[in-house]
Structure formats: C-alpha cells, structure tokens
C-alpha cells in the first residue's frame, strides 16, 4: 500500500477566473503488464499558474516525462495508463475527457516540444506544411490567412527568411533551427500551456542559450505558462519560477526557484545541487551521491531515496514520509522535515 498523500478534497478549481491554469492532483500512471505493474508516476500533485514557468527536475526514470505525457493524454496505450488522479485544466478534468474532446485541448490550448527535433518533424513534408497543420486544424485558417499565420509563427521564433524556408524540408535545417520549427508549431496556436520536455538536450550551449531566451521572451510577452522538464539545474535556475523535484515517480520537494537553490530542504535536492560543478566556483571535490537512481521495478520500502541518503533514519526505511508544508504551496516529503 502506497503511503503517498493525496489531497482528500478533489473539488474542481473555479473556471477561468482562477489564476491556476493547471492542477495535477494525485496523478498515478502505471505501466501494466500481465503479471506486474510499474509505478512510473505514483501520486504526483502540482499546480501551474497562468504565465508561470514551472520546472520538473529529475533523473532518467524519475517519471517526469510520463507525467507530461499523462497531462497530454498521450501515454502509450495499451500498457501505460493513468490509474488515479486528475488533471484539471481550466476547470476540465483531462483524464476523464473522451479522446474526441481532448483533441480540442491538445495542440490548441496545450502544446508540447519534445527532446529530439529530428523525430518530431516529418522528413517528407515541407516545413511550411508542418507548421501550417496545427493552424489549419485548430484555428481553421485557410489560403492567404494560413500562409500569413505560418510566416508569423516562423518569424516569432527567429527563423530568418521565412518565405524561403517554408518551402524547405527538415534535413535542410540545422539542429537549432529544427528545434525552432518545433517551437513554432507548438506556439502557432497561442496555447495557454507549453510543455517543453528536455528541448535543448541535443543542442550546443550557444544554441541552447538562444533557444531558452526565445521561449522565455515569448512566454513573457504572451503570458503562456510553461512546464520545463529537465535535468539541468542551470536551465531550471534561469527559466523557472517554481520547481518540482521528482525522484522515483513522486515529487519530493516543491518550492519557488530561489528557495530551491538557496534553501533546499530535501536531502536529494541538496545533494543534487552539491554534486554539479558550477562555473566560477572551485569545488575541491564534487559531492558524490552514492549508488544510483532506483529502477521503478525495484523500489525500496519506505522513502525511495533512503539507500542513498546520508541522513536516513530508521523510519525512512519503513514508511514513505508524509507531506510537510513549508509555507504557501511549498512542501517537502522527508521525515527529517516532519520530526
């Protein structure tokens, strides 16, 4: 029996008036096969306000990508299912919506940028065709208005000579330019929420910096909310207002970005911050988190971080720690914070 804390009242948030755009509540997404289930996401709750940039930080296998796919209703079926929880988006629970209605959200009000721009573009369609698709489907534009909207979308993401470029194919674009095209597709319908899943992993630092600034500027201008999924603490510090730290399928700490970096509460957050080399600060030796992230099919009893935690208590090995509030929306799941 999982001891995770799910808010008992799942009242839908008020429509539109509220500044909360997305509220994920007690989300559980399991990979289910004939004889076992893997708890990829195991009781995740967080909110995204309008215009806010929220980071989801975690290592591979921590469940950050599956969380995003669950929000979009894009979990690979059969085999991966949202088994509990809700995803309230502007008053609607996306988990309960039928596929047909979900389509009016996906791509229209919620857009996603994936890690690898090469695989999210169709190699046999021109850039123009691909950027036009969401505008045609969702905004119902045709003809000259459609072309105008495509050019505007490409210009907004800083693609030079858009009239010439829209007739070209993905292979004629560099990695950075391809990622801009993917961003143009996502942003062309003026979504209220943009989910960026490790969008810069395949880019050079220089191109990454350009891309981060682009998304942040567009976000500020249009008031779009953004979920940044990343393992790079530098990106989190520069782009996010709020940070959720994930470990083994759960959010172990949630706080404003300054608080996460200046006063981290969870031993995992603290260890992560101590283990990365920081430009301009000489660390004699990097702090080393022993062991490795647990695999979801072999989670230890109690808090999944205890085998690697240098502060583990006896109770940590027995029971998952309850949520300890740290003021406002901030919380941490750690027995050290409870006692």
């Amino acid at each position: 029996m999982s001891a995770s804390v799910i808010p008992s009242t799942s009242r839908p948030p008020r429509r539109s008036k509220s500044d909360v755009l997305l509220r994920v509540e007690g989300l559980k997404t399991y990979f289910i096969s004939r004889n076992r289930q893997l708890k990829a996401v195991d009781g995740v709750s967080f909110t995204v306000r309008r215009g806010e940039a929220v980071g989801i930080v975690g290592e591979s296998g921590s469940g950050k990508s599956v969380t995003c796919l669950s929000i979009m209703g894009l979990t690979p079926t059969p085999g991966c299912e949202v088994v509990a929880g809700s995803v309230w988006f502007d008053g609607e629970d996306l988990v309960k919506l039928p596929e047909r209605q979900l389509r009016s959200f996906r791509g229209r009000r919620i857009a996603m940028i994936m890690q690898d721009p090469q695989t999210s573009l169709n190699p046999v369609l021109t850039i123009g065709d691909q950027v036009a698709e969401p505008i045609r489907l969702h905004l119902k534009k045709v003809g000259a208005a459609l072309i105008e909207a495509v050019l505007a979308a490409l210009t907004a993401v800083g693609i030079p000579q858009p009239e010439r470029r829209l007739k070209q194919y993905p292979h004629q674009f560099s990695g950075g330019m391809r990622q801009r095209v993917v961003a143009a597709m996502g942003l062309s319908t003026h979504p209220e929420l943009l989910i960026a899943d490790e969008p810069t992993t395949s880019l050079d630092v220089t191109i990454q910096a350009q891309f981060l600034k682009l998304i942040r500027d567009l976000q500020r201008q249009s008031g779009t909310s953004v979920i940044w999924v990343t393992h790079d603490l530098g990106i989190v510090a520069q782009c996010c207002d709020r940070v959720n730290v994930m470990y083994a399928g759960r959010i172990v700490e949630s706080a404003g970005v300054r608080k996460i970096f200046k006063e981290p509460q969870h031993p995992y957050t603290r260890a992560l911050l101590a283990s990365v080399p920081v430009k301009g600060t000489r660390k004699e030796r990097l702090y080393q988190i022993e062991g490795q992230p647990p695999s979801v099919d072999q989670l230890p009893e109690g808090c999944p971080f205890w085998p690697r935690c240098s502060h583990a208590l006896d109770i940590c090995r027995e029971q998952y720690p309850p949520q300890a509030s740290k003021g406002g929306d901030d919380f941490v799941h750690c027995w050290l914070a409870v006692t």
Partner: protein
Amino acid sequence: MAHPVLQVEGLTKHYRAAGSFFASGTDIVHAVDNVSFTIDEATTFALVGESGCGKTTVTKVLLRLEQPTAGAVRFGDKIVHELSGNDLREYKRAVQAVFQDPYSSMNPRMRVLEIVAEPLRVHQGLRGSALCDRVEELLSDVGLSATAASLYPHQFSGGQRQRIAIARALALKPRLMVLDEPVSGLDVSIRAQILNLLIDLQIEHGLSYLLISHDLAIVEHMSHMVGVMYVGKLVELSSKDDFYSNPLHPYSKGLLAAVPHPDPDLPMSVGVTGEVASAIDPPTGCRFHPRCPIYQGTGACRASEPLWREALTGHRVACHKVEPMLEIADAR
C-alpha cells in the same frame, strides 16, 4: 618542469565532401586547420567548442583512426602517424580512450571479465589466474566488486558501464587517456562519481587526459589547460585559471556566457548569436567574424586571418582585436 606527453604540431585534416549522384565531390571540409598544442604529463588538456568545430577529428588523428593531411602528432621523439611495428604497439598501449556511450563501445556478448582482459591478453600475454587477478584489481580500482567480472554489459547501469570502460582503458597502464564526453550520457547524480574517479586515477597513476566536453563547468573542474576551437581552428589556448578569469577571444567569452548558471539571481545571457559557420566554405579572414560582437563590418577581421600569438604569458589567442583591447586595459 612539465614534461610533454604528446605534442600536436600544425595538425591539419581535410576531408573531401561526399559528392551527389551527379557530381563527384570536390568540396573540401576543413575539419582541422593548423592546430598546435601540447599535453603535459599528469595534466588534463580540454578541447572545447560547438559541435562541428573539429574536436573529435583531433582525437581521431591522435588515436590513429585518421591520417593527418598535414602537420604531425609527436609522441616522445616519434611521429605518431609514421609509427609501425613495436613502436606502434607501444603507442597503442600508451594511449587509450573512453567514449561518451559506454554501451556501444562494448561487445554485448562478452562478459566484463573478457572485456577488461582482452587488452591484457593481446598486449601482455597474461593468462589464467594472473589475468583474473589483474582484472579484479582493475575493477576494484574503478569501484566495482569482483562479482562484476562474470556479468554482461547490459546488466549494469550507465555509470557502472562507464566504470568498466575506464577499467579497460586503464588495463595497459596508459600515459594518456582520451576522454570524449565521458559523462554526457550519465544521470546528474552519477556524473560526480565518475568525475571524482577520473581525478583520483589521474593523481594515483600520473595519467594525462585529453578531455573533450561541451560542458564548461565540467571542464573548469577537471582541466589544467583549455583550448577553444572554432570551425577547425584553435582560437584560444591558456591555463584553466587564465581562461576562466580572463578569456580573451570574443568566442570564448560568448561560450562562457552561454552556460546557464545554476543561480536564479544571475541574469540569463545569450553569449553568441547565430550558428556555426560551414567547414566546407569557412568565412574569410577570422572564421568567427560573422558572429563576432566586436566585428565592425570592415577591416582586418574579414580580410586576413588573425595570427596565432601569445597575448599574455602562456596565453595564446588568434584575434585581430585582442591586442588593441590589452592596450586599452593598460592605458586605464
């Protein structure tokens, strides 16, 4: 006094671009152009730059996977691409490599014992229990238990596989290890383990490293000397401390500024605008001028190639604007 392990002198590697169906390739890719640097004993030399700048081509020539078009790599008093026979065997023993993806650099059908033992069998003719003992010793050097020897690569996590790759590279007691993005494929919490291990091994065995990395924070943590490459050219070369406290080349400054700093109080900066120039038809003069923030549209930057010169003691740079900048700094 520092002893050089390896000297790269005027190294140039050009490739012929693949032609299309109708035309045979006549374009020349200037992958590496006249690059010189020295790797000293028991130090780490880092090469940084964007993808396509020629870092990996340099390592390929070093590892004798490619022949240089011009220039030479010197190992002691010998020229590497002219080695043969016993000298070549000795060189291949002394220079080892660890790559980004340890999984694709291991035979999935071999047990760890066989993977780590192979160089020992081939080069030193070790057999039987002597071989097993040496493998166990190597595994323990990289922090793996002896039971790992009987397992297959897929049974390990990425970090552990990288440890196996390091054990294999260490087997022949090399003098130089080429580390090509050794931690980019690993989880954040695992990177520190591998970086610490590499530093420990360097101190223990007096190893030299050639580190290829795009992560400038890791380079700062690991290296003693830093070389910056742009479209096949070395544009700056200095000690790590000088490079990070006083980068001279505008490209180096841009690269450093582009690293997102894990501190929410620092502003975001873009560093360098535009994209890397093509190595097939590199810009005239200074190859960086189309992206350079201090280029003013005319003058030497476009017309002539900047000289590779020592701007400060031990700090080399190729930039037309650097000397004037230093004079201004002095005048103040």
